[in-house]
């Protein structure tokens, strides 16, 4: 590569050269900043050196307030304090998206004079960071009148542009770190769910085996229960494991037993959301009710009815969910001769998980089940608006 030839007659102005290098250095430092505090520390030092001001502040927009995050000055300014955007010049600069150049602060009505009286400040420049929708501002202050000139304004504006990029980088890094943390959290969560599911399958296997009359009976009941568990998982997966809809879970539990001739099914109540863990035990509880209805109850005969209704009272607080499962039109009901796992699950499954109380009655005209549970983070009622 040929050596650069210096054009005769043009010599780089030493002052311009020096401040250019200083600016480049600041931009490099800002490019490496990882936190807002890093940015603030770089800006307050660099802005003061490059503008030659007696003091510099770095102000962040915090909702409808300006937050004097950092400062470097010959005397104390407002570090750590927050003021309404409408009551300070940094707020004005951020709201207008314009630089304020004020040669005499006590002659300018935009300045809250009381806040400045204890300080050394007589003149200032306040420049917003980011032209569109400013997120911060940099202030430069002088102890004499008429100090800031065009050159200082231009230099501060250059620093402000580099700061805007640096703050965007900081946000990007923060959101990346957050995503990575979220990913690790999801993996842990998944591991937890898989282990729980394994445990649940083993528990169901044990309990089903303990009461099964034959290998075939075991296989059928076990299959049905695991399928029910799988349906609960599918419902939750579709909703990205956020929550579950109580009404849909009731419908899911009954879906394997529905026939074309079952005119008699009511599933009615307000929108109620369940946390994933509670959703699994709720569906398992309903599954046992539905299985019992299909084998011995209302769903074992054409014309039998199942009415599942629920309501929420006292919402929002303390709030109570009351759910009723009523069968009718089936064969006469007799209480089971022994307490199996299904009955235990109905009485104590979901209810135990949500601190609820249950009442299971094998009335001759049909099974009746009633559950009363307090609303909590596991059960919440959704108030429909604009319905």
């Amino acid at each position, binding site marked *: 590569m040929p050596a650069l030839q210096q054009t005769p007659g043009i010599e780089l102005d030493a002052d311009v050269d020096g401040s250019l290098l200083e600016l480049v250095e600041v931009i490099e430092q800002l490019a490496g900043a990882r936190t807002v505090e890093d940015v603030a520390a770089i800006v307050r030092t660099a802005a003061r050196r490059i503008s030659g001001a007696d003091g510099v502040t770095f102000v962040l927009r915090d909702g409808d307030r300006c937050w004097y995050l950092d400062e470097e000055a010959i005397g104390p300014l407002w570090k750590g304090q927050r003021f309404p955007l409408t009551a300070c010049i940094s707020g004005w600069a951020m709201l207008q998206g314009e630089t304020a150049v004020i040669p005499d602060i006590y002659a300018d009505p935009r300045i809250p004079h009381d806040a400045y009286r204890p300080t050394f400040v007589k003149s200032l420049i306040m420049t917003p960071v980011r032209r569109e929708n400013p997120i911060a501002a940099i202030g430069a202050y002088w102890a004499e009148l008429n100090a800031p000139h065009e050159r200082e304004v231009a230099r501060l504006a250059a620093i402000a542009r580099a700061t805007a990029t640096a703050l965007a980088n900081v946000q990007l890094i923060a959101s990346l770190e957050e995503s990575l943390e979220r990913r690790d959290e999801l993996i842990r969560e998944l591991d*937890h769910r898989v*282990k*729980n599911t*394994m*445990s*649940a399958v*083993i*528990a*169901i296997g*044990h*309990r089903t085996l*303990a009461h099964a009359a034959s290998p075939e009976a075991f296989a059928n009941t076990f299959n049905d229960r695991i399928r029910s568990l799988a349906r609960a998982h599918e419902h939750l997966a579709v909703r990205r494991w956020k929550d579950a809809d109580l009404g849909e879970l009731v419908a899911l539990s009954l879906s394997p037993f529905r026939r074309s001739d079952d005119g008699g099914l009511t599933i009615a109540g307000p929108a109620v959301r369940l946390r994933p*863990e509670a959703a*699994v*035990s709720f569906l*398992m509880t309903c599954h046992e009710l539905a299985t019992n209805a299909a084998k011995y109850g209302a769903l074992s005969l054409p014309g039998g009815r199942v009415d599942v209704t629920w309501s929420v009272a006292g919402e929002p607080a303390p709030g109570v969910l009351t759910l009723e499962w009523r069968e009718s039109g089936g064969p006469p009901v007799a209480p089971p001769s022994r307490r199996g*796992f299904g009955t*235990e*699950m109905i009485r*104590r*499954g*979901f*209810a*135990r*998980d949500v*601190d609820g109380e249950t009442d299971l009655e094998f009335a001759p005209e049909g099974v009746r089940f009633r559950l009363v549970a307090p609303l909590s983070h596991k059960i919440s009622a959704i108030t429909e608006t604009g319905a």
Partner: protein
Amino acid sequence: MSLDDVQNVLVVEDESLLALDLECALEELGWEIAGSLGGVAQALNWLKARERPPTAAVLDVNLGGEMVFPVAEALAARNVPFVFATGYSDVVNRSGFSGRPTLAKPVDRDALKRALDALLAPNQ
């Protein structure tokens, strides 16, 4: 056997399905279920309200996000032996209970029996 001789066990497990199964397993091993609770506050209240502490306890470690350790402390203060059940043994190791017996979840019947027998061994 007098009433005092009945070995009864406290179960703390947040998932009802697993709790029901654990209760049945314990009953099959000849234990009486003294109580079965799903949360720290419920278990502590249960202990407080009870005149005679249970003979032993089986404690699931992670109860829907809250750790069972306050219950373990209350049991230790009453000299009730207990065994943890957890899918995450490192959580117990990092707690103040690292020396305590721990069962891996899903809990194996034989391991449960051995752990409970060891709890009641005279010079444990």
